[in-house]
């Protein structure tokens, strides 16, 4: 709401939407962005190319320890900047004029645009002089934040809410809503109580509250993509190093029944990552339909020892997940795989096991990955240490997909990459989950274009044309 990005994705995950970028062009090893000339920071300063250049240089500077810096590995000067003794701007990112940003690449990178979904552009005129090692400590981030989004920061009331007001200079149009408050809750039940009582117009919910929310006058339920839930398997553990053992897990779990009875239809059974990116899905992917006999025969082939039990971690705190985990435990037990369920309450035990490499199984989600190029982060080298998958074949297909801008070629290589994952089953993809959001549509109108999307990256919510009736 406060920040703006260069480009975003529509909330329905279809099609790029220019935010600060009025236009862009990516050809061969050059990407050119044209920022909108009417875009302004909340303090009235125009947003120009130097803000974008500054943002990317901050991200790629190792001193800032940004998690998104690695997304720009293909930019000229990136490698040198990582080993420089003092903060270095990337030579491949330049601003030929105030409203042109040019990014020179060492090789074609069709995943470049998708990386911008995760990046807010930050003001050079405010943060430009700050020591990079201390940039995260600036009061700017929590108090008095200046962005270029549809709403301006008013005040943060710690532990209660963030008060925002309309930005009259917003580059699309001045928002219809004049004030917007983002409420903080530590407790899910209180979140729903606030929605029921009325001050909260939008609230997260789960399938357990379907009946409750459906009974609230004026409330509707919106579903948004939430990412594919999977059981991550430590492929380095000898018991799971053979893909047949991993495939057995996939066959052992009745995904269809779980989605129908526990998710109540608000999830779809899947067997691949990014199932909603339909052009990247191979037509012959193995659905791993429920087949406990097949699971048992695979386990027999690998000489499975059913006397050993393994810890199965999960970190979602909702009741639906807890019930799903119990169901998974029973399905696995039926084929001879014994798991002990362990909830990760943030105590650090699981993190320690991941760092030590002693973990076995974890149920989780990488969140909605907006493009196949993100698979290189999730399933490729950056994730190798923590997620243990290593396939030269997969890396080659993803690299080939990144090296071409031709959609058909991208599809061919992406499908091949997804097929490899599907066959290798390094992790067991289970459910394409949906986030449920309760909305007081009797008071809030968000237009005909989808406005609610995944929570972990920036999508175009067009909040400037939302309206509220008293």
């Amino acid at each position: 709401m406060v920040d703006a990005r260069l480009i975003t994705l529509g909330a329905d995950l279809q099609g790029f939407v220019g935010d600060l970028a009025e236009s862009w062009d990516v050809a061969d090893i050059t990407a050119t962005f044209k920022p909108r000339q009417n875009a302004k920071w909340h303090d009235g300063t125009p947003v120009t190319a130097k803000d974008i250049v500054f943002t990317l240089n901050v991200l790629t500077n190792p001193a800032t320890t940004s998690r998104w810096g690695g997304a720009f590995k293909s930019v000229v000067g990136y490698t040198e900047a990582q080993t420089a003794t003092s903060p270095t701007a990337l030579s491949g990112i330049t601003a030929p004029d105030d409203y042109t940003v040019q990014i020179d690449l060492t090789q074609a990178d069709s995943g470049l645009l998708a990386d911008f979904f995760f990046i807010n552009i930050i003001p050079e005129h405010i943060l430009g002089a700050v020591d990079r090692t201390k940039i995260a400590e600036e009061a700017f981030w929590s108090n008095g934040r200046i962005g270029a989004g549809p709403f301006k920061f008013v005040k943060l009331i710690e532990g209660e809410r963030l008060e925002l007001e309309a930005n009259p200079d917003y580059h699309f149009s001045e928002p219809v809503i004049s004030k917007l408050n983002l409420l903080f809750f530590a407790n899910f039940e209180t979140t729903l109580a606030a929605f029921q009582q009325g001050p909260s117009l939008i609230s997260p919910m789960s399938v357990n509250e379907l009946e409750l929310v459906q009974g609230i006058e004026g409330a509707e339920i919106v579903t948004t993509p939430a990412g594919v839930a999977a059981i991550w398997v430590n492929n380095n553990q000898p018991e799971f190093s053979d893909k047949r053992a991993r495939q057995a897990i996939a066959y052992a779990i009745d995904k269809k029944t779980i989605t129908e009875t526990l998710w109540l239809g608000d999830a779809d059974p899947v067997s691949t990552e990014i199932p909603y990116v339909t052009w990247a899905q191979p037509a012959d992917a193995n659905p791993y339909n429920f087949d406990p006999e097949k699971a048992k025969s695979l386990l027999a082939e690998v000489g499975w020892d059913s006397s050993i039990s393994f810890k199965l971690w999960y970190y979602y705190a909702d009741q639906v997940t807890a019930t799903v985990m119990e169901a998974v435990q029973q399905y696995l037990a039926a084929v001879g795989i014994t798991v002990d369920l362990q909830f990760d309450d943030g105590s650090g035990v699981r993190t320690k096991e991941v760092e030590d490499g002693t973990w076995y199984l974890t149920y989780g989600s990488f969140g909605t990955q907006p493009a196949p190029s993100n698979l290189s982060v999730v399933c490729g080298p950056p994730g190798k240490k923590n997620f243990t998958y290593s396939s030269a074949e997969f890396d080659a297909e993803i690299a080939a997909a990144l090296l071409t801008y031709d959609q058909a070629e991208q599809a061919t290589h992406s499908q091949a990459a997804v097929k490899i994952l599907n066959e290798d089953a390094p992790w067991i993809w289970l459910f394409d989950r949906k986030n449920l959001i309760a909305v007081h549509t009797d008071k809030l109108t968000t237009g005909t274009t989808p406005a609610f999307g995944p929570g972990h990256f920036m999508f175009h919510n067009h909040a400037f044309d939302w309206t509220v009736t008293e």
Partner: protein
Amino acid sequence: MTGYLINRLFHALTILIGTSMLVFIFVELAPGDAVDAMMPPESFAAEGAKDRMREQLGLNDPAPIRYVRWLSRTATGDLGYSLTSRKPISEIIMKRLPTTLQLVGFALIISIVLCVTTGIIAAIRQYSWIDYLTTFFSFFWISIPGFFLGLLMIYIFAVRLNWFPAFGATSAGAENPFLDRAHHLILPSLTLGLELAAALTRYTRASLLEVLHADYMRTARAKGLKEWVVITRHGLKNALIPIITVIAFRLPYLISGAVIIETVFQWPGLGLLLLNAATQKDYPLVMALALAVTVVVVVSSFVADLAYSIVDPRIRIG
């Protein structure tokens, strides 16, 4: 008196240092650190990012050095910075402390008023239906977990009756901030106070029953004083001594109960802050909060001693 105060100060310092050391040890023994909390395995942090952040935050230093560094800073009044928000801890605590004091303070007032009133009635009308009703509700409120009671109060008084807000300490754009805050305060302080009141009622009743039939009470009645004067001026004063002890003893529970109530009602006090800090392994903030709570307990113990001397002239401080 001076000697007494010095003695108490010395004890307080010992308790504070001991508490800080224990808290630090427990936080250290817990696996993971603040950087792990900020960058879980699924965050795909850049190679070396966690190590660099640990270096920046001073987390690579040995634990004893970090503790001594923290202690020496705290002795000069510098509580340091929160590892997660990077803000000065003293600033964070001073912003939230009044909010918790309001909650705990009002809860204490509510519990004292309720326990004295119902305790007196139950004692005077021993074995009557009022006494049995009071006993029933006392055990009822004691038995219900605070979390559940809070949600119940929200459901009945906020969602169903819409008498009170369901969350927070303030409303955006409130015309009268003082009244608005008071309106928000009622439900959480009532919830917190009821639990303490339930326990205190039993003590008040028992304590008053002991004195009701004492010789001096008979003498007071024989002098022709009204019954309520006999009870309040003569009986209650003597019955209060054990009650003060119980209140002082239960005060830490009130503060710990505030953590739960603040979470349920999204009351932005120290309790909620402590919960977040512990979850995020923000050890400087956890330790500062532990110290703050310890100070409150030590001060309340001192205030209880002063209250004894007021209630019972035979008790002298020092």
